[in-house]
């Protein structure tokens, strides 16, 4: 079961983030890449170089949009001007699905430009799910919400993060962008078992996965996206792939960005775990037929 309705039944393979330091290499060398993930906000502009580059990329590659400012969990209503710009971009890229984070980051129109954790309550889940539905209906594209890494928890929370993720996605009937690095980071910061999280997520809703690197500090771990993926995260990814099936996967590398080749090679390491999951799945199928 490689694809589902939350990623329009596509089998996208392994992608990487489209980042400025790689533009020249990509446009000149046209390397073989399954797909690129773009940060929507970088292209929600009226003209100029960003859209010129995007159009050149779209001529050659499949692109999926990933946002950082929809703030599904903010109490504020969705901003119409923002949605209008986003829809114009959706039409331009023909993204098969669109992802953004299960978080908040603005209130009263003031933006923190951060992905702040949600209070895990039923009221917050209802509000967030309503907003996801509104956005999906306006944009007319499947939505996947991504779990964020977090460094704080609220007293008012009534459930675990994975229960909240399930509650929101069931209510909104949307997909999940499962970031296994974020699960690892949050598990370390809050002291839960990351495998409990993975096993608690509705696997049939996972339309995409993220892997990334992080940085360890003395008392907490920060989601920095400036390293190769660490081994415990790959192990989580392997488990997630076994549980959810082969899923469109993307490596995030946003700071101290190395060469294109290095980033792509790191992303392609996911193939080994995918092959392992596929072999396991084939073995199970054979066993069923015997």
């Amino acid at each position, binding site marked *: 079961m490689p694809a589902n309705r939350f990623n329009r039944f596509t089998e996208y393979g392994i992608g990487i983030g489209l980042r400025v330091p790689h533009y020249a290499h990509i446009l000149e060398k046209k390397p073989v890449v399954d797909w690129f993930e773009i940060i929507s906000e970088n292209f929600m502009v009226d*003209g100029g170089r960003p859209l010129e580059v995007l159009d050149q990329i779209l001529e050659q590659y499949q692109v999926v949009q990933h946002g950082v400012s929809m703030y599904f969990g903010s109490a504020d209503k969705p901003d119409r001007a*923002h949605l209008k710009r986003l829809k114009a971009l959706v039409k331009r890229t023909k993204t098969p699905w669109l992802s953004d984070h299960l978080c908040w980051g603005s209130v009263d129109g003031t933006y923190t430009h951060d992905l702040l954790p949600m209070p895990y309550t039923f009221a917050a889940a209802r509000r967030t799910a309503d907003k996801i539905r509104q956005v999906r209906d306006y944009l007319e594209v499947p939505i996947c919400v991504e779990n964020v890494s977090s460094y704080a928890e609220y007293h008012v929370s009534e459930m675990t993060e994975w229960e909240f993720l399930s509650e929101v996605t069931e209510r909104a009937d949307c997909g999940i962008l499962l970031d296994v690095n974020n699960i690892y980071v949050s598990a370390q910061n809050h002291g839960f078992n990351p495998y409990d999280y993975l096993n608690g997520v509705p696997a049939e809703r996972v339309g995409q996965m993220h892997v990334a690197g992080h940085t360890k500090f003395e008392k907490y771990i920060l989601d920095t996206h400036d390293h190769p993926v660490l081994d415990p995260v790959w192990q989580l990814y392997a488990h997630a792939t076994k549980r959810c099936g082969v899923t469109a996967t993307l490596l995030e590398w946003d700071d101290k960005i190395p060469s294109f080749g290095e980033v792509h090679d790191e992303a392609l390491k996911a193939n080994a775990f995918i092959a392992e999951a596929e072999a396991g799945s084939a073995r199970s199928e054979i066993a069923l037929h015997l």
Partner: protein
Amino acid sequence: MSGLRAAPRHAPAQLRSTADLRTLQRLMTHALVRPLAAGDRTPKQWIDGRRTTAEVVGEFIKPNATLTAVERIEIYHRVYWFRLIGAATDDCPGLQALLGPRKFERLIRAYLAKCPSRSFTLRDLCSRLPEFVRRFPSLSRPQAAAARAIARFEWAQTEAFDGPSWPPLTAAQIQRVPAPQLRVSLQPYLSLHEFDYPVDRYVLAVKERSALRSAASNAREGELPADPVKQRRTLPPPRREKTYLAVHRFENRLYYKRLDPAQYRILLALQAGQTIATALARGGRRIQPAVVQEWFATWMRLGWLCRRVRGKAVPVREQ
């Protein structure tokens, strides 16, 4: 300048409604956008001056085995400020070079405290910086006048980089209408400036120096002075010199073009919706027709002129 409502006195004890969610989010936003204290720490006193931060944050954030509630909020607090200061630094290399890293950072911290972001994109972060620099000259003394000019110049570059464009006018379209009645507009991404400083040369010098330092650093790390004060001394502040500039883009690359004062006046009149005849009159009587023709030919080659219908330019998004 901020739309953020006043901080609620208390966090909700339970979260039962969107109003409760808003209260919690408003309180936490106040905890993040307030300035950091010395050593980039979260201040011990809460913003009301009466309670401690620990009392207020402890109402809504849980501690864990290794971090207090305030330490957990402090992670977000520091990330907020470092991210925004970093974004402003990327957008304003000229202003940073003029003021020096320390004074620049003080200015940006004061700006962000007064004008938190009101846009979903960090691209707009410095949109109000030119006005802020003008209103609070003490933060950029003794270079306040040059700082005003450079802040305006650097924001114009952001707008020129990815602002909207309209279909440029062709020679045939111009020839169809008699000059006295013809009204044209300028591309919305193009801005015209009269500066008291040669900001273009200064910012170019800053960028060249930065590129040189970067190349040299790759070759022999640590060879060039790492002390920001010493670095600043190598580039003297600009001296007063009247400078007219058009900040624009051509083939999607950013440019700034020096203008003759007469060119500046003509273009300003066109931008304001005057007819070509009126705009030319603003240019002065001494300009030879052949010279003006050459100017218009250049502006058309650069795609600056576009059509104006009933007092408004025709907006067309780039395809």
